[in-house]
């Protein structure tokens, strides 16, 4: 059980903390493993659109059953891999506006950690 690993990642997972290079204004998410001298922390809006998606039918047991994954193009620029939630496959399309929600990513078992993080769903309104 990777307790410390999940703990280290909470900034990005819980509130979309990314990095902005002050010189180039480039935003990176997930944040880079090594930040440059001009990097500053930035909280992303969580808004974006579906760049591509797939309904995973043979996912790992840890995720249970079918789920949707996507590459989401955030309005700030980064392309993020994440699950889609609160939507059925026949209602998903490329270009669809989505927003970030915080959900359970994994349940590591009865005596295990609950891992929370970002997923995306179609814009509510």
């Amino acid at each position, binding site marked *: 059980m990777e307790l410390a690993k999940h703990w280290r990642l*909470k900034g990005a997972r*819980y*509130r979309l903390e990314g990095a902005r290079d002050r010189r180039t204004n480039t935003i990176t998410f997930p944040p880079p493993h090594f930040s440059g001298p001009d990097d500053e922390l930035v*909280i992303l809006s969580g808004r974006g659109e579906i760049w591509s998606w797939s309904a995973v039918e043979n996912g790992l047991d840890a995720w*249970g059953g079918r789920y949707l994954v996507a590459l989401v193009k955030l309005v700030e620029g980064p392309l993020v891999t994440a*699950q889609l*939630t*609160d939507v*059925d496959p026949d209602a998903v399309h490329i270009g669809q506006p989505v927003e970030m*929600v*915080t*959900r*359970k*990513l994994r349940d590591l078992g009865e005596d295990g950690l*609950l891992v*929370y993080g970002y*997923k995306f769903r179609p814009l*509510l*309104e």
Partner: protein
Amino acid sequence: MAITRSDTGIVGYGAYIPRFRIADSEIARVWAGGGSGPVEGKAVAGTDEDTITMAIEAGRNALRRAQLDGAQLGTVWIGSESHPYAVKPSGTLVAEALGCRPTVHAADWEFACKAGTEALTAGMGMVSSGLVEYALAVGADTAQGRPGDALEYTAAAGAAAMIIGSSAKALATIDATVSYVTDTPDFFRRADRPYPVHGNRFTGEPAYFHHIEAAATELLHEIGAEPGDFRYLVLHQPNAKFPQVAAKQLGFRPEQVAPGLLAPRIGNTYSAAALLGLCATLDITEVGERIMLVSYGSGAGADAYALTATEHLGQARDRAPRTSVYLAREQSVDYATYARMRGKYNLG
């Protein structure tokens, strides 16, 4: 204890209801060979949802309406009887997700269905005393009902968040509040047991009705008001019938109750139930109109509040999705799917 001089109010509120619904007729089909239940259907949390995730979304909505940053919150208090961990606070995780400072006060509250309003009253104290500027109180539950039990027809999921701040900035001022508690074993769940036990008809007259009516009557008496002085009444709603009967007994009219009565559509969201009703009511309340809110928690107790909408409410309500948006996104599931989503299959 009545608090009749409050300089606090609701500066932000936020609702959350998951999109899945199961009809009572579907539950009745499986367990009773057909028929109906005490509500039309209930809201069911998805497999990736729990008290923590729902509290986060409700909290984010409340922050948006309050136009606050999480870093400005002084407390993150989560009232629930379905915290995902028995030991490990929901509040710390919610606080981090909302962007709070580590110096925030975070904790979990438990008082059956009124854990959320207990946190609300405590938040009033923190703000009124000047200890914090803003206090977040959330009621959230993914309620448990033993398969086939009467509770299963209503035990639902939802969350509502309230940010308490000074009355000067409030969307609705909290003018007074009354707490009324007795030791009444109408409903309980022992530690380490998965489902609660309830006292059937004992949950009615001596429990729900007595506490709601005592708290409401005491509040009316303390502030010298009558039911007709309030535009709306929001009660804890374990089913469709109880709040309507209690309202009538208190002298309120059905149209005062209707906007905040969500149980017929989404069931009993436990710690969220009264506060979600308040969210739906605040969505339509006009400046100067008064709301009475009475929560109820088994065990037992009721918190009654008198609120008055301010001129700030109108412009704040559309900064986040209205409760009706969450009510409208209904995805029906059958019993088998519901059982899978709620982990009711024993997979060995």
